[in-house]
């Protein structure tokens, strides 16, 4: 993933302007972090409720990006070029169609294994991940798909120096959309009956079933919610980087999982926080150290967090029951 050549960002290697450069990386990192955060919520919700790592979640994100691309091209072909309408249609389409994949994933691959050894579920998840990657590769081709910028331009400030800090309209869009989604999502979890059922299942699946919560439906809805958030992340990724291929889900998935662990797996605010941190770390690492090792940075953080603070930043401490 080309982290430091995002559309919004200005070119790097302008190290004479310390403050400006830092600010630019901060903006880029936050944008990236919001994308990771949206994916991370899917990991953390599923882990919280059925205690498994949904390894195929990165692929759901990738499918979201592809559905977005297809819808953009379709709208272009249909002549709908008014940007706000086009983006809104794409957003709805990708959430809708991608969540079907999320639902089916749980129904076909995970539900039959709910009472099986955890290893079996993990293997199935890896199998699903491989399957979906190759499914998309077969259907849409292996070549990288470029999309011309949909939203261009941006705010420029600190113009007095030669290094111009840019906050692109696209980045504003990503940040605002993420905040909106988070508000809606928080409302759903805290105020709706699905949210209550979801939280109950997260506490104790068996007990939730005993008091009459439809556990199957709640788990399905959890996957649907996670998938639709990931699909929005896919849309943002597509618009931000302008190129996608069938393989983007793997690394983005790993990083988002790292974000979920960093924030404390099972904690929804933690997932967003973790996502933002990973995004920032990645942006600053690429900017100040080496781009080549930026993916190693995410893994190194994952390892360090798990060793020194396995419950993450916002996770609840886990006392060993004997």
């Amino acid at each position, binding site marked *: 993933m080309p982290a430091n050549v995002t559309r919004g960002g200005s070119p790097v290697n302008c190290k004479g302007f310390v403050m400006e450069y830092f600010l630019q990386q901060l903006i880029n990192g936050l944008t990236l972090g919001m994308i990771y955060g949206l994916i991370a919520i899917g990991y953390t919700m599923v882990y919280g409720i059925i205690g498994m790592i949904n390894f195929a979640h990165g692929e759901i994100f990738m499918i979201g990006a592809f559905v977005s691309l297809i819808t953009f091209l379709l709208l272009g072909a249909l002549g709908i070029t008014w940007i706000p309408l086009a983006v809104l249609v794409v957003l709805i389409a990708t959430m809708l169609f991608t969540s079907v994949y999320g639902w089916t994933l749980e129904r076909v691959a995970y539900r039959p294994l709910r009472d099986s050894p955890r290893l079996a579920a993990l293997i199935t998840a890896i199998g699903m991940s491989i399957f979906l990657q190759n499914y998309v590769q077969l259907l849409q081709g292996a070549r990288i798909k470029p999309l011309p910028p949909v939203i261009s331009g941006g705010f420029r400030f600190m113009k007095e120096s030669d290094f111009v800090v840019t906050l692109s309209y696209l980045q504003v869009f990503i940040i605002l959309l993420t905040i909106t989604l988070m508000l809606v999502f928080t409302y759903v979890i805290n105020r709706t009956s699905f949210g209550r059922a979801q939280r109950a299942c997260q506490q104790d699946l068996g007990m939730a079933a005993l008091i009459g919560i439809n556990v199957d439906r709640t788990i399905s809805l959890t996957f649907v919610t996670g998938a639709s958030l990931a699909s929005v992340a896919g849309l943002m990724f597509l618009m931000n980087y302008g190129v996608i291929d069938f393989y983007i889900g793997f690394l983005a998935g790993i990083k988002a999982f790292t974000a979920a662990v960093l924030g404390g797996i099972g904690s929804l605010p933690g997932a967003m926080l973790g996502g933002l941190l990973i995004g920032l770390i990645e942006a600053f690492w690429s900017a100040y150290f080496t781009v080549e090792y930026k993916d190693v940075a995410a893994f190194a953080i994952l390892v360090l967090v798990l060793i020194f603070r396995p419950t993450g930043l916002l996770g609840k*401490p886990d*006392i*060993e029951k*004997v």
Partner: protein
Amino acid sequence: MSVAAPDKLGDSLITVEHLTMRFGGLVAIDDVSFQGANREITAIIGPNGAGKTTLFNCLTGFYKPTVGRLTLHHPRKGDFLLERMEGYQIPQRAGVARTFQNIRLFPAMSVLENLIVAQHNALMRASGYSVAGLLGLRGYRQAERQAVELARFWMDRTGLTDRADIDAGNLPYGDQRRLEIARAMCTNPVLLCLDEPAAGLNPRESSDLNALLRYIRDEHSIGILLIEHDMSVVMEISDHIIVLDYGRRIAAGTPEEIRNNPDVIRAYLGENEDEPLPPEVVRDMEEER
């Protein structure tokens, strides 16, 4: 509060001094001190949530106590400060073995294997840390034969010999309880900590258990710490009883003393003594008298 002196004669085996265990704001054990003696069964009783299992977890290294000193006086090796040792070293060096409230066997391994694994450390040395074992040397085969004999001894004692090659997970409940005790004994302990060994047993199994525990105490000369809710077991076989309530030690003494201790009765039955007791409690109390 001074360190509790042993109330009964017998070599002191375990000394617990000012043990306190906190989880965040919750005080699970609050300044508990007592001693357990060699060749004695010391029962630890108390209502649910009194901190009994937490006490065991501190003793066997699963939790690090917040405050306090746990000294094991090993008859041959000297004193061990348990709170400073890693969990696995406590059975390995100090000779403290335990069982669990919800049985923890190796379910996919056979009964015999469960008992052989318990002799891991001795066998590891004998197998030359696997090198001699891989080469199939004689010394190791000899050691393994001895290990099987020890296992067989305890299987005979617990009535599991016929089921030696069955997976532990497929045993009936009562057999699993006894296997767990046999496995603990195969580690050659000096102190055996049993967490509700009679839970879920029928009256016959329960009385067999009493016999087994007495046998272990008398013939193997080791100390037993026993958490138990079944008063018929506690009153019948223990030499000494410690009562915990809300993490505090509220009484200690012989079964006779405990039975008549008003604090204990209050802890078990609640403050409101005007309320009539449930009939089954009355029956239990009368039976024990």
